[in-house]
């Protein structure tokens, strides 16, 4: 394993295989918390942290499960670990960053059901990543999420003033906008790293 292979994973997770625009993981918070840039960035940062942590912990858990011959319990074990981690982050934020805690509100416990978090843990196993690769993939995947939600929130703030057909109000126009950003992200697919 070299630095270049790690860099390839990182670039892939942030740009070419962006969790939101290419893999459709984590759409619910992406659409739910993207009305204002501040909260969007807070959410992105929290998700990045949880994703990095979850990749690291789930890597160990998976080793234990495989060693015990319980590989099929993966999904159940992962989701429990993630739920515990999110609870931990919630307690930490409540005590140390109360403004962010109130801003994220109901979406904070919902990180548990953010498919990007469980997705990254499962993809790490599927791709046979080692410990460092898993953590890099988790953190950069989270950064990709942060980038996506930041861009989307910035566009969406302007969208408030857009004069669209009435039936497109709210979610539909947001989805079409997201589609157009995804189109822009497709431009990165030609990107080759060494």
């Amino acid at each position, binding site marked *: 394993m070299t630095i270049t292979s790690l860099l390839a994973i990182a670039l892939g997770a942030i740009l070419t295989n962006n969790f939101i625009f290419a893999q459709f993981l984590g759409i619910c918070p992406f659409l739910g918390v993207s009305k204002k840039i501040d909260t969007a960035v807070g959410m992105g940062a929290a998700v990045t942290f949880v994703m990095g942590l979850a990749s690291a912990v789930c890597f160990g858990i998976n080793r234990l499960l495989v060693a015990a011959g319980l590989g099929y319990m993966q*999904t*159940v074990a992962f989701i429990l670990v993630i739920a515990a981690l999110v609870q931990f982050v919630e307690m930490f934020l409540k005590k140390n960053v109360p403004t962010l805690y109130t801003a994220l509100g109901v979406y904070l416990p919902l990180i548990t059901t953010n498919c990007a978090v*469980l997705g990254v843990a499962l993809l790490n196993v599927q791709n046979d990543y080692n410990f460092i690769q898993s953590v890099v993939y988790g953190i950069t995947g989270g950064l990709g999420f942060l980038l996506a939600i930041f861009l989307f929130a910035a566009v969406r703030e302007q969208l408030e003033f857009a004069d669209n057909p009435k039936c497109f109000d709210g979610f539909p126009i947001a989805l079409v906008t997201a589609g157009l950003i995804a189109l822009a992200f497709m431009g990165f697919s030609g990107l080759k790293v060494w």
Partner: protein
Amino acid sequence: MNAKKQLKEGLLTQNPVLVQLLGMCSTMAITTSIMNGLGMGVSVIIILTLSNIIISLLRKIIPNEVRIACFIVVIAGFVTCVQLLLKAFLPEIDKSLGVFIPLIVVNCIILGRAEAFASKNAVGASTLDGIFQGLGYTVVLIIMCFFRELFGAGKLLDIQIMPDGYTPIGILTLPVGGFICLGVLIAVMQWALAKSAKKNENKEKEAK
């Protein structure tokens, strides 16, 4: 709460995807061919119904503070069962759905219905709710698949439908197509609901 009303809510007025906006990730990700849509839809119907039954049975035993964790464990158990069954009997579908089968655990439809319906209602109603909400989800998946496969690849169920000279709109099968297709579908739904609401209003006015 009668069955007919529940069916109408599941398919139309409270459709999980188009009105409640739940379970968007899988809706956009796997709807590139009708086979995928069917496989995913049927898996979700089975898991949603079973988990609704169990959660409704346990609703008086589960303490309120840890209910979400309990729901997730029940759901994850059923998802693992379905995943193993698919791997054994329908390996092709398992392969093409990939990571989205285990991700049914975090599909908000299932947790959402557990929290909003099954944890408050009796077993019979919860079972029906599971079946009808799952059906509503499946119908949306199939509509999306139909458009994306027909126009994006010119095929349906892997059979060439469009004439030879047809150039497929490849963008529909890409992620971009998923976003835009679902956006337009939700817009159509909002338009239809607004129209029927207006109709009812007019009727009431006339009645007065």
